[in-house]
């Protein structure tokens, strides 16, 4: 079982205190603009004079926006994302930079922040595994995990109404979510790529514990990968018991035959 920690010494900003909203411009081909609601909890004890920057990025394209200081957040007049690649999801990072020692040291940061989806905006909370529509070529779906950004379930925007069908069709949902969940749980519990202190990893571990009804052992070394594998399978099994995809699919089939 993996164990990685942040050794840079900088403080971690949490997504609870950061909300990014994308606004589509009037023309469909125009680049979107964004707004950011930023809050810095007092317990982080950040210097009010430290500068705040928001960076938007898509693959190797990036844009940087100064947002004032910790003590006085001031959004720039223009936040249009003109220089970002089109056609892929935009992610954001927020940096708090101490420039008092004449060197720009990052004292707090959050990376891989995705903008709130419409559903999250409406519900006022973040999904653990958000659905994002994107062009996946001939693939129907995939789990996308990049750096410190939380995992998202990407579905192919070329397939009409796939999102709606995923909500309505238990057969489709069961087929996709079972494997999607396995991939994410494997990333959380077995892959060495992701820092244990990353917020999304912590949130997913809480989810695992809640679904299993038992805590994850704190220390599991490399020889205990079998245990991690057992936890993954057990979590999936309990998740499927809750969602009852197969039973719902059978009922849906019977209902359609009786019509």
């Amino acid at each position, binding site marked *: 079982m993996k164990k990685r920690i942040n050794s840079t010494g900088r403080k971690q900003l949490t997504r609870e205190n950061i909300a990014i909203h994308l606004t589509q411009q009037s023309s469909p081909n125009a680049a979107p603009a964004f707004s950011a609601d930023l809050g810095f909890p007092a317990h982080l004890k950040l210097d009010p004079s430290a500068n705040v920057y928001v960076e938007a990025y898509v*693959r*190797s394209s990036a844009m940087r926006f100064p947002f004032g200081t910790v003590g006085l957040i001031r959004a720039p007049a223009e936040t249009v994302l003109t220089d970002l690649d089109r056609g892929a999801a935009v992610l954001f990072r927020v940096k708090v930079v101490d420039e008092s020692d004449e060197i*720009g040291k990052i004292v707090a940061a959050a990376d891989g922040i995705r903008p709130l989806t419409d559903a999250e905006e409406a519900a006022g909370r973040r999904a653990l595994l958000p659905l994002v529509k994107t062009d996946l070529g001939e693939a129907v779906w995939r789990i996308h995990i990049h750096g410190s950004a939380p995992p998202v379930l990407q579905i192919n925007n070329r397939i009409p109404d796939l999102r709606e069908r995923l909500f309505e069709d238990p057969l489709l949902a069961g087929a996709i979510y079972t494997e999607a969940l396995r991939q994410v749980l494997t990333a959380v519990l077995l892959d060495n790529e992701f820092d244990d202190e990353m917020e999304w990893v912590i949130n997913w571990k809480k989810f695992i514990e809640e679904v299993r009804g038992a805590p994850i052992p704190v220390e599991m070394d490399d020889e205990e990968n079998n245990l991690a594998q057992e936890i993954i399978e057990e979590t999936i099994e309990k998740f499927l018991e809750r969602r009852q995809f197969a039973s719902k699919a059978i009922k849906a089939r019977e209902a359609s035959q009786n019509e």
Partner: protein
Amino acid sequence: MSDHVRVLTDEGIEGFRQYLQRLRAGAKEVAPSWLLTDTSTSAMMPSAPEIKKKVFSSRFDFGQHLSQMLSPLGRRSISHHHALWTWLSLYFFDELCPLQADGTRRVLEDAVYVVPARYNHQRYYRHIARTSWLTVSDHGGNAKVLLTGSERGSRSEIFEQIASRQGMLGNPTIVAGAFELYFDQANGRQKKGAGGKGAGSPRRLAAIVQQLELTYDLAACTTGQLLELLPKEFDRFKPEQAAA
């Protein structure tokens, strides 16, 4: 003689693309300059400045020329104007892709001459006219480190390592640091060894910068501070006072 800058229409861009394909197939044709002015293949540009053809001594010289000529237009209004950049490539085509002794031209990939309508950094940074203009406009003389050795649309190792990453290309500290490390100002060319891939190379710089960016906001650092943060492997490229 100067001309008013125009933009290519879709038909004009397609005509230019087909010309590039014919050249690759071995055709010995003059550049289709009629595409630049014909009203079906080009269109006027509001507030278009005048532009002049000239012989450029280097790609940096080309970037300076574009930067001066296009300065009346706002950066934002032209940065993604694919029809403008493609028009400019065709306008300067004899300079960018000159005739060889046997009457053929050494044509590179389309992305060097034609900008796609949809912004994509991995395609845009390869465009010879736009990137020459962008780097000189953003970095002034420091752009020499990127453009020297990247003549006529070829891409040097330094150019590739920095320009392919927009976060690095848009960061004045990093470009200035690369200039200090890899550009021989006395001789106006890249330092010996700057095109390598080993210790202290541009490839290593890109990797180290990504590590440093976990701790430092390099855009808020000075060039000297960036050089100080670099490990010993870069000492052989550092200016003497910085390496000491």
